[in-house]
């Protein structure tokens, strides 16, 4: 298994930029293409790439399955909580206008938090499905 030196070095080179690009796509989604779903897909793909090259055990040490399985419902919860915050601040469900002192800032906050929720769920679901598939040995 020492023959994959090129793969290991290339992965180590690419991976930081991949995760950074995911953060960029996430936070810059207001201004350019992207958003929570795309960033989550890229981040999930980054973790999966790491697991493919360095082995499942190494990936599980860095991103433990328990954390992943917590993140899957956590993202939905963040999204729903932002929606409920619209109620508490005096608007309709998922109405962001009252989250900050003026409606435009409220909208920006709402979109940012909602995209965060989407990111958490999407990335965690990708990794969780990958773990579920690869965690099983060959059954026959």
């Amino acid at each position, binding site marked *: 298994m020492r023959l994959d030196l090129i793969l290991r070095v290339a992965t180590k080179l690419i991976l930081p930029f991949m995760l950074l690009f995911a953060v960029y796509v996430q936070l810059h989604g*207001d201004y350019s*293409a992207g958003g929570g779903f795309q960033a989550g897909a890229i981040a999930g793909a980054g973790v999966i790439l790491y697991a493919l090259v360095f082995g499942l055990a190494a990936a599980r040490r860095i991103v433990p399955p328990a954390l992943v399985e917590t993140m899957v419902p956590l993202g939905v919860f963040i999204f729903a909580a932002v929606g409920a915050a619209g109620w508490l601040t005096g608007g309709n469900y998922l109405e962001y206008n009252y989250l900050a002192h003026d409606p435009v800032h409220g*909208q920006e906050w709402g979109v940012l938090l909602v995209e965060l929720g989407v990111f958490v769920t999407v990335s965690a*679901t990708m990794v969780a499905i990958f773990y579920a*598939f690869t965690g099983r040995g060959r059954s026959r």
Partner: protein
Amino acid sequence: MLAVTTLAIVRVRNLFAVAVLSSIYSFMMATVVLVLDAPDVALTEAAVGAGVGTVLIVGALYLTKTDESPPVHGVFLPMIVAAGTAAVLLFAASETPPFGNPSNPVTAMGPDYVARSIPETGIPNVVSSVLASYRGFDTLGETVVIFTAGIAVLMLLKRSPARRRGEGDKKGE
């Protein structure tokens, strides 16, 4: 090239080759979508369809056999089903509004969102503001769908090793 790849996917019997071909198909699809000025969809297609999807298909192949089993039916039953589906779809397509008509509901909403996005939300990327703000409830639904899919796969696949002996050949594909 898309058509050639699709035909190859249908014809090739080795499922590992099919996995690679479907990855190629996803990359070409991402290029097509990029040409159509939808970089968001292209990003998703490249990351999910070509990357993660292929990994998951290969992972599923590892759990099963790598060769397609011979067909159990003759050629007539699938053909009747395909022709029936095509007939229903063509009938439904005859009811859709004409392509590119400016008074269609889809195209009529567009300029409204474009005009309202910056003054109301301060977000220059209209795709983001429509997704997260104007259509926030739909996006919440999508997130719940992804959540449900993840939970379903976990429930199907994540069993304790002791119980693996007794189960059939059901796979969460």
